[in-house]
């Protein structure tokens, strides 16, 4: 296998190497200088490429918002493969790489692809995903066949066609830039003038039809715009990866935005950002095609946002869970403290670590840690008791502060009210109630607790006959032993 790869690979690499003109091809420049050159934007070719990447990113981001929300991602992928034969035919027709004829060819091929999909849907029982696979591979194969044929026939200026696989930034012409600009303009105008209609048709197609919105026409235009976006981006990212640009920036934006307008803006900015950064890195790397790098930058941005977005980012969820856990441990300790004091009839106000260990079923170091947590939070104070007997180890002794007492009362009240509620109103068996109530008191809000109290008519005792601390007790801040 190695032999034939060398033979064939060598032929292809050398042929493409001869044609490709890299930006700043001098091998001696180190990457720092390259970076400077890029940022300064003095070189017209650099400016052109950056502009192209910017325009492409904006277009793909904008139209991509609709692709993702309407679940057209794989359709976008199919379309990007399906335009290939159109490009080949356009080239043959024009006899050279004339952007306009390529565009027309690609448009016709895209349209043909869409028609085939509709035909398959109407006349067969083939499922949607298989139909997409069929159209994708059939059109693509036709495209490859025509392209390899073109290579063999040896048209002049056919080198540009190879670049459609992964994009070749150096082959970007001013025609391409114009094409990108026009596409962006069309997409923006379409969205601006049809914003509300698009919103309604995306959300509820049936309803939109009933209020007279031309659903099918809008959808058709949307598809054609996707096709245009694909075609104009081909020179930069190539056929295979263009669908990535339609999906990834928009998906990233969907993690952050809640409203459609924000979504559109974020999506286009992310697309533009990825486009420019990717081109920048490709420029640094000298021989790396821009397409894959632009996609990788978008993917990294996506992962970054997925993990780090505020509130719902995976990292935050994990941190939240940990802080929730510690809050619950604190509350459980307070509850245990209350119960211990209650058992002693509120005559003392000191609680030993041994008592907590027994009540909570935890080990000594764990209890020490909990007491420390309470002390740090200002909910308790601690002392070391003197050694009574030689054999007993010294114990930590804890006293609740007024703040701690109030918190503990609230916890116990919530817990016992909830137990009563479940037993009385929801008719639960007593042995069900206890475990569930263990979780509830941590999440009951004040409003709900008042609601329950009213419902149960301000009860004084819970199903097990224990005291339910009343609001007055808590607000007066009565410490046990002082009341």
């Amino acid at each position, binding site marked *: 296998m190695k032999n034939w790869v060398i033979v064939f690979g060598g032929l292809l690499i050398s042929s493409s190497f001869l044609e490709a003109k890299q930006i700043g091809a001098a091998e001696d420049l180190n990457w720092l200088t390259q970076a400077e050159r890029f940022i300064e934007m003095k070189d017209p070719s650099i400016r052109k490429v950056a502009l192209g990447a910017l325009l492409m990113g904006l277009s793909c981001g904008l139209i991509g918002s609709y692709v993702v929300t309407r679940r057209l991602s794989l359709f976008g992928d199919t379309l990007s493969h399906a335009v290939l034969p159109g490009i080949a035919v356009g080239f043959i027709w024009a006899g050279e790489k004339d952007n306009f004829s390529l565009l027309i060819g690609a448009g016709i091929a895209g349209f043909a692809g869409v028609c085939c999909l509709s035909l398959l849907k109407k006349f067969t029982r083939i499922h949607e995903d298989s139909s997409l696979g069929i159209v994708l591979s*059939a059109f693509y194969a036709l495209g490859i066949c025509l392209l390899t044929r073109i290579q063999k026939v*040896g048209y002049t200026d056919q080198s540009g066609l190879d670049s459609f696989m992964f994009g070749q930034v150096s082959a970007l012409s001013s025609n391409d830039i114009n094409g990108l600009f026009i596409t962006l303009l069309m997409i923006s105008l379409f969205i601006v003038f049809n914003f509300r209609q698009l919103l309604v048709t995306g959300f509820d197609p049936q309803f939109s039809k009933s209020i007279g919105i031309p659903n099918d026409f809008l959808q058709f235009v949307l598809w054609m715009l996707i096709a245009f976006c694909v075609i104009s981006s081909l020179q930069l990212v190539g056929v295979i990866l263009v669908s990535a640009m339609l999906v990834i920036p928009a998906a990233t934006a969907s993690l952050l935005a809640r409203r459609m307008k924000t979504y559109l803006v974020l999506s286009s900015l992310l697309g533009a950002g990825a486009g420019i950064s990717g081109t920048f890195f490709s420029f640094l790397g000298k021989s790396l095609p821009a397409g894959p790098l632009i996609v990788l930058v978008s993917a990294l941005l996506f992962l970054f946002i997925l993990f780090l977005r505020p509130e719902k980012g995976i990292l935050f969820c994990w941190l939240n869970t940990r802080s929730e856990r510690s809050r619950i441990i604190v509350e459980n300790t307070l509850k245990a403290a209350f119960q211990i004091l209650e058992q002693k009839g509120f005559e003392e106000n000191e609680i030993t670590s041994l008592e907590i260990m027994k009540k909570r079923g935890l080990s000594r170091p764990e209890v020490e840690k909990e007491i420390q947590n309470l002390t740090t939070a200002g909910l308790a104070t601690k002392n070391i008791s003197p050694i009574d007997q030689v054999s007993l180890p010294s114990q930590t002794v804890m006293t609740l502060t007024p703040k701690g007492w109030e918190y503990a009362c609230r916890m116990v009240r919530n817990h016992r009210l909830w137990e009563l509620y479940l037993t009385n109103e929801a008719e639960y068996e007593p042995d069900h109630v206890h475990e569930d109530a263990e979780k509830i008191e941590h999440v009951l809000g004040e409003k709900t607790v008042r609601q329950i109290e009213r419902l149960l008519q301000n009860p004084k005792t819970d199903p097990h006959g224990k005291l339910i601390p009343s609001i007055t007790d808590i607000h007066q801040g009565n410490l046990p032993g002082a009341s």
Partner: protein
Amino acid sequence: MNFIPKFDPSKVFFEPWATPELIAWNSQVILMGFLVCWASGMVGTFIVVRRMALMGDAISHGILPGIVIAFLTFGSLEVGPMLLGACLAGLACSFSIEWLQQNSLINKDASMAIVFTSFFALGVTLINLQAGHLDLDTDCILYGEIGLTPLAPNFIFGGNDFGNRSLWVMGLICAAIIILVSLFYRQLLLTSFDAILAHSIGWPVKIIHLFLMLLLALSTVASLESVGVILVVAMLVFPSVTASFFFHRLPSILICTFPLGILYTFGGFHLAYWLDCSIAAAMAITASICFILSVIFGPRSYIWKTAKKKPS
């Protein structure tokens, strides 16, 4: 030079078989074609009935970084490491898609698009970073070169020359796939049709799914050399959708893969010979033509049925 060469039947159909050397060369190419079609067709039938056709596309793109990393790690294009790397990448791809779906509100098709394009971009970038050091080139990964199959070295074992190594590898994989599919046919059938029933009789549904993904990665990797990553999808999808217009039971559809594979290979080979283009593309085009014909003329097609219903 004309774009479409003149079609001379004797030239197109007989020239490739004119001399003994040509016969020896081309029959290896044809055999490889059969094996690729049969292996992909068998696996692809289950992929299609599980409505996962584009998963096949996704995985065939997703295995690229696996192959490149295997090459970088082991320093050679040996089959073993490549298969391993590709299978691992394929499984990573399918896990990532599921993970993404479960841990965010991103819908299924967007998740697939995100994962496989990123993997693919990674693979292409790695290849290009190594340009000059790596003998792997992107075009062959993309659309393969089945015509160069006979160039592969021979398989030498214990001092005996068994013949073309690529054919042996593909042959073993194809045989393995056929045997495994026959052996575990009931399991694949039930988990595809009604996973809940399978689950209730105690079968490990997830593992069977993984097993199918593994077979998919295996057949894709093995076909890589010949038809390249892109056209694998054609070989996965076309046999079963074409056969479904002739037969209504799964076993018959599976068996139909064999004659269809032969048809695609011969059709593609001669088409490519006539047009002087990529054989893999020609095979896919042949498959499309067969499909279109079966849609129109197949006994189970809708068009036929509506025609029957019309009063004459």
